[in-house]
């Protein structure tokens, strides 16, 4: 199982190590550094590496590498999932997952790691359970603790750990009982030069924020559950009810959690909310090129497209861009060669347009590759797949909770080829 964990920052310093069995020298990371050196971009470091006596399994999150060392045959997904869980927990506890914040909370981090893994086996990874044992830092508590000599560590058995609903603690009380659900969909798509969809799918997630007293038993039903091709549930969801009735029946964890993720695959027709007309040309002579992009609404179901942004990774030889935008601002970063055009709200009456010239390094040959466009956008109050919640019922408790559902559509990996 998981033997050791090293946290490594962007520049290759190991700033935290934790061993759950015998101590493994940090020199084992040298193999990793070697590969990292070769990969140039940190994103391109392969997640599983073999060394003569160990395996190194790593993830890259928030400009940090979480590198675990294993010695025996272990499912790599198990390790990767766990590492992401560690990063999520840091995020949850400290608000962000960065080197600075981890160093500021070293002791808590160490206590957390000790609580999350025992002898390489995961122990407590549910946020609810962890928070009962190790309280997240906050300024008020630190002050109170300093005054009273209190502690950050709970001294009772985390109640959730043993019950049939390990994700929920007993004795939850609220004065305002509320249950909110956000249905967020991301469109992953590749459009070709002519605007035809090469591939498109929707990744959806139902995020819940439930603050309800006692042991509520909730049932969430959809108008059109058959839209969904594949679903993955939080352990609280009763799978049998979904199989037979297509409703989500569950006793919720307390607080924020992901109730379900789903997938609407490329087999179904996916609506593409905008169209992009573009032409990027580089000329054989004169070391220059032309760029023109126009974006217009397509299938947006009558809603407004906001937060529109276009990102282009230009070929290395492009030195500068001299463009005019009819709406929004553009920036061109010389070192990363990234052109960003921040448009904002899409006005169907006056389509945003960006045009102008690109200048290239003198004498350099015309670039071979065609840069792809990455599109960002947001549509409030719309789930582009058409998924709709029909009702939420609560059993087991007498009070009447506040209920709410929000929809949001975003672009995921939305790319236009040129």
């Amino acid at each position: 199982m998981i033997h050791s964990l090293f946290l490594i920052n962007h520049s290759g310093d190991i700033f935290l190590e934790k061993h759950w069995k015998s101590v493994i020298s940090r020199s084992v990371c040298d193999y990793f550094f070697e590969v990292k050196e070769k990969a140039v971009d940190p994103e391109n470091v392969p997640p599983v590496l073999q060394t003569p006596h160990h395996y190194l399994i790593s993830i890259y999150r928030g400009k940090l590498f979480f590198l675990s060392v294993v010695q025996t045959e272990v499912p790599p997904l198990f390790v990767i999932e766990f590492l992401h869980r560690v990063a999520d927990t840091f995020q949850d506890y400290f608000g962000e997952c960065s080197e600075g914040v981890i160093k500021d909370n070293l002791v808590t981090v160490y206590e957390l790691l000790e609580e999350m893994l025992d002898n390489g086996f995961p122990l407590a990874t549910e946020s609810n359970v962890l928070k009962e044992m190790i309280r997240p830092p906050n300024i008020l508590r630190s002050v109170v603790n300093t005054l009273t000599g209190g502690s950050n560590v709970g001294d009772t058995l985390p109640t959730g750990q043993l019950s049939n609903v390990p994700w929920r603690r007993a004795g939850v009380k609220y004065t305002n009982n509320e249950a909110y659900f956000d249905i967020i969909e991301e469109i992953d798509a590749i459009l070709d030069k002519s605007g035809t969809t090469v591939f498109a799918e929707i990744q959806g997630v139902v995020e819940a924020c439930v603050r309800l007293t006692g042991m509520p038993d909730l049932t969430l039903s959809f108008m059109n559950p058959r839209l969904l091709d594949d679903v993955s549930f939080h352990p609280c969801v009763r799978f049998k009810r979904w199989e037979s009735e297509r409703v989500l029946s569950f006793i919720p964890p307390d607080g924020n959690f992901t109730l379900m993720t789903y997938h609407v695959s490329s087999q179904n027709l996916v609506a593409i909310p905008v169209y992009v007309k573009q032409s990027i040309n580089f000329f054989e002579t004169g070391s220059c090129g032309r760029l023109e992009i126009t974006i217009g609404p397509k299938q947006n179901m009558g809603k407004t497209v906001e937060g529109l942004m276009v990102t282009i990774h230009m070929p290395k030889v492009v030195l500068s861009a001299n463009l005019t935008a009819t709406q929004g601002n553009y920036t061109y970063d010389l070192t990363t060669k990234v052109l960003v055009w921040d448009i904002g709200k899409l006005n169907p009456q006056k389509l945003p347009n960006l045009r102008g010239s690109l200048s290239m390094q003198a004498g350099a040959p015309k670039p071979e590759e065609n840069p792809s466009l990455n599109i960002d956008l947001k549509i409030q109050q719309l789930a582009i797949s058409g998924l709709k919640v029909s009702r939420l019922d609560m059993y087991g408790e007498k009070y009447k909770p506040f209920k709410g559902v929000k929809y949001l559509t975003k672009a995921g990996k939305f790319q236009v080829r040129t």
Partner: protein
Amino acid sequence: MQEWANQLCENRQFGSKMTDSKYFTTTKKGEIFELKAELNSDKKEKKKEAVKKVIASMTVGKDVSALFPDVVNCMQTDNLELKKLVYLYLMNYAKSQPDMAIMAVNTFVKDCEDPNPLIRALAVRTMGCIRVDKITEYLCEPLRKCLKDEDPYVRKTAAVCVAKLHDINAQLVEDQGFLDTLKDLISDSNPMVVANAVAALSEIAESHPNSNLLDLNPQTINKLLTALNECTEWGQIFILDCLANYTPRDDRESQSICERVTPRLSHANSAVVLSAVKVLMKFMEMLPKDLDYYGTLLKKLAPPLVTLLSAEPELQYVALRNINLIVQRRPEILKHEMKVFFVKYNDPIYVKLEKLDIMIRLASQANIAQVLAELKEYATEVDVDFVRKAVRAIGRCAIKVEQSAERCVSTLLDLIQTKVNYVVQEAIVVIKDIFRKYPNKYESVIATLCENLDSLDEPEARAAMIWIVGEYAERIDNADELLESFLEGFHDESTQVQLQLLTAIVKLFLKKPTETQELVQQVLSLATQDSDNPDLRDRGYIYWRLLSTDPVAAKEVVLAEKPLISEETDLIEPTLLEELICHIGTLASVYHKPPSAFVEGSRGVQHKRLPGSAGSGESVESPDTGSAAGVSDAPPAVIPSQGDLLGDLLNLDLAPPATTTGPPPPTSSGMQMGAMDLLGGGLDSLMGDESEPLGGDLGGSPAMGAGFGAPPAGMPASFNAPVSGGLDDLFDLGGGVGMPSGAYSPPKSIWLPAMKAKGLEISGTFARRAGVVQMEMTLTNKAMSVMTDFAIQFNRNSFGLAPAGPLQVLTPVSPNQSIEVALPLNTVGPVMKMEPLNNLQVAVKNNIDVFYFSCQYPISMLFVEDGKMERQVFLATWKDIPNDNESQFQIKDCHLSSDAASSKLQGSNIFTIAKRTVDGQDMLYQSTKLTNGIWVLAELRVQAGNPNYTVSLKCRAPEVAQCVFQSYEAVLKN
């Protein structure tokens, strides 16, 4: 380190007072003293702050072990946080201060009795993490109590503690009976306890190949399936992986398990999903294909696999490596999902390459247009590696989907027009493959290819181009000029290009003899006289000889029709694929290698097989399920049949890397000998002047070259010692497998006396012949009546020895007759640790009765032929194995020199890796590998004139040392 910490302090000076960064602001001078004072403070709060500072220093790698006694003093406290912090410290430093750690034991034992289950669990958990022998003794009693604790939280913690203890002292765990208690916990009422017990047992079983810890039967399976629904996501992974090792009795049981596992496909944790996929893929094998449920299951597998691809890139990578296996085994699952494998420009490179590979595997006539459009798109990307692979993929599509070949070729020509150097070179390499698949179809493009001759600077592309020119010499008007232009820089070319050039010019000569005589003479003399590469020289001689003695034969050989290549070349060999399917989700599945190939000998190597499918309603069976029945010796389909090899041998050097996925089958060496005969005795006269050892001259073919064409310089220096046995030994050195080696075999002894077995006397011995362990027996009938119907069976044993076939006694044995029988054995039988380790219990049956006896085999029978470790690996492994695992033995009265000893040992597959002489004492470093993958490293010390040798053995499984030593003694003294 110190410097870094200082820097950190500077950076942090402005940090908030509320955070832990304040622990860094203490100056390094007198830091320890300051902390010491604070730790001994009367104020609780101050104490706690001090311990926190100590922990903070520890996490960044500072040494604060000097504070051990002071920290331990803080342990007896009611404050849970302080207690936990002290425990954290203890785990880190107890090893370096074992005597001091004893001080903590009392508190631990007391805490294990605490009324608060949290404290009980914490104490037993921490105790298990303190890797100090003295402490583990005290751990046993508290652990035993905790395993039976009324609180499941304590029980589940204790279960893991057994695994910890086993890691520190396996014997102790066995002696104390903890393993049985752990097995009982599988039936615990709490699912969390069950999951942890399974996890602990799996880990113990892994380091302990001979034990049969997880004895799965329908009852335990049922318990596991019940716990599966209720335990945590991590517990589900352990249970699913454990389930995957079970073999259901029939298809109905298989189906019922599948039904209960399928809901796991909807879990949010991708590791749970993949482990469930493994169980389903394996158990599906047993379901009849005409069953409705079989089709339902197939449909259910696709969506979760697709969903895995929308996760984080690291998860995608592992998922893709596994999907690669799944589509090879069952392409129907994902045949409609091609699009999800389309590459996005900002995918990490490792994801891009994997997606591309799967796209080709899924390519079919139905979707080829889409695939080609995508590949063409990728060929204009930025990343060179990816572009190259995309171009190659186009070639693979052409070979795989015949209807698309024309379109592929025109796409490739478009790409050549881009004139991007590496694209052109890749394109030429794949076009050569297309020519080999569809000869005489696309030769019209040769002209375009020839235009790009000058831009080729990579050996592979140059060699491919030369091959094309030679192969189609009759259609290229200026073929001689083209080839001549390469000849100018002959000596600067790589071997690959030189060999191609030689062959191509010979081909050209055979096709247009009149104009090219000069050219061919030039290349033959370059190859034979001016080159010191044996492969090249030998091929040159062979051609020379052929051309000069019998040009007609030369034509038949060199211009023979070549076998067509097929898409199969990049598929994983079926038996390996089957094994890998059983390992879905593991590291083996990521590396596409069986675990035995890369996991070190610390674990038992059990080759997993897919279960055979049910016999009912099996009318249409795919060919690969046929082999699923467990036939492992079928030759891999990718290797061309013998007859075809000859054509390849002389013609193409380009192909072998692509076509051989496994080692060449042993039959090929015999075949190559045949090829040599073809040249007749004239060979000798041709080479009469050359004073070279025979071995060097045989190396005409690439496969042979690897076998023994390597010059002696390539061998480790320690092998310079003269080795007896000539050619045989040469084969051995080069890693040749399957040659009879002079393994030591003890004389026969009587195993079963006649009086104990109603007149049947059995004497026997064990031998290792040509890599196969044999049990050689003499059966003597000392009774009055004829004996017939012999059969033999083994009990479970330490190394899984089992008869590889039935006992071959064909004729009845009449009174007073003796017959000799050799029974080949394999090592894939059930495993159980025996005492002594090499004990084997045998049952022999005949028409009279069943008889039992036990015998001991010399462990050297199990030393495999490829037990020679790389020097570097040896060094690293020697260092890595803890000294506790080292054992030393004396061999008395042995009068061999170190070299003689070395060669004698080598006969029994104990390989000398290096030799060192210090003060007249020879030290031989040796390695050997057992059939179950355990490596044994040895240092043999031989003092000139002293008949007593010293052997030090190091091994991850120290139990085998005694047996190995006995073998050393036996081999050296006989």
